[in-house]
């Protein structure tokens, strides 16, 4: 079933703030095996010009994807999430995410297309800090594969 094209351009209210913890950053860096000291050592991060430890570039996806999940789960949109795969992912950074940030995400459906029975959804998540400053924008392309004929 093709999705309702009128959802293109729709924005969702900002999420509740997510507070970025230094131990969560450490856990993530260890999980990807990245020993860069900017992720775990505040002095090393300061030597690079950052006020505190920073997060690896893809860390913020956990936050933006959760926000996108609220879009995907919108019953009015009618997306079958069990058929969804992650197509593309892109980030544009104004600055790196860092410990102590309280981040909110505002999600917008940029485009909805149907191609060969697949529904393709482009969601943009704008991430702002507690001062309202833009931190990063995340673009997520989700592809809902066509249902097999019974």
């Amino acid at each position: 079933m093709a999705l309702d094209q009128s959802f293109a351009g729709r924005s969702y209210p900002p999420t509740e703030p997510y507070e970025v913890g230094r131990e969560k950053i450490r856990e993530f860096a260890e999980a990807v095996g990245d020993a860069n000291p900017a992720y775990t050592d505040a002095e090393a991060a300061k030597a690079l010009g950052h006020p505190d430890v920073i997060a690896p570039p893809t860390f913020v996806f956990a936050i933006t994807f959760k926000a996108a999940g609220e879009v995907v789960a919108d019953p009015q949109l009618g997306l079958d999430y069990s058929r969804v795969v992650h197509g593309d992912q892109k980030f544009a950074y104004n600055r790196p995410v860092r410990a102590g940030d309280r981040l909110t995400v505002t999600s917008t459906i940029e485009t909805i297309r149907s191609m060969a029975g697949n529904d393709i959804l482009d969601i943009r998540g704008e991430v702002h800090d507690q001062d309202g400053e833009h931190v990063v924008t995340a673009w997520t392309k989700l592809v809902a594969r066509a249902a097999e004929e019974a």
Partner: protein
Amino acid sequence: MTAKISYADVEVGTELPAQTFPVTRATLVRYAGASGDFNPIHWNERFAKEVGLPDVIAHGMFTMAEAIRVVTDWVGDPGAVVEYGVRFTRPVVVPDDDLGAVIEVSGKVAAKLDDHTVRVDLTATSAGQKVLGMSRAVVRLG
């Protein structure tokens, strides 16, 4: 920002040091916990096969996280990354053995841009197959 690579010293075609990243089932369980992505295709072989996959596959975002390390290890400051995007073209299949899979990543400078930035094009393969497409980062150099 203090990047250890100077814009003036980089040409189009400059190759970044390539790296290989091993992935085992344990790696995926750990990444699931750290990222909050508990989709069972990344840890449950029975479920993965039920939905038509050959075996458990790595999180696409795990592969994305590893690929950018070729860039961040090159420049030193991960905060120098201005843009980063990938297309997930093929899954990284991770068998249930002690070896798991290996992701091989190489990168080279594809364009010199304004404001001391360069575009790096990344290539990520596993078992001889490209697993990321259109994998590009823009990074600010010193």
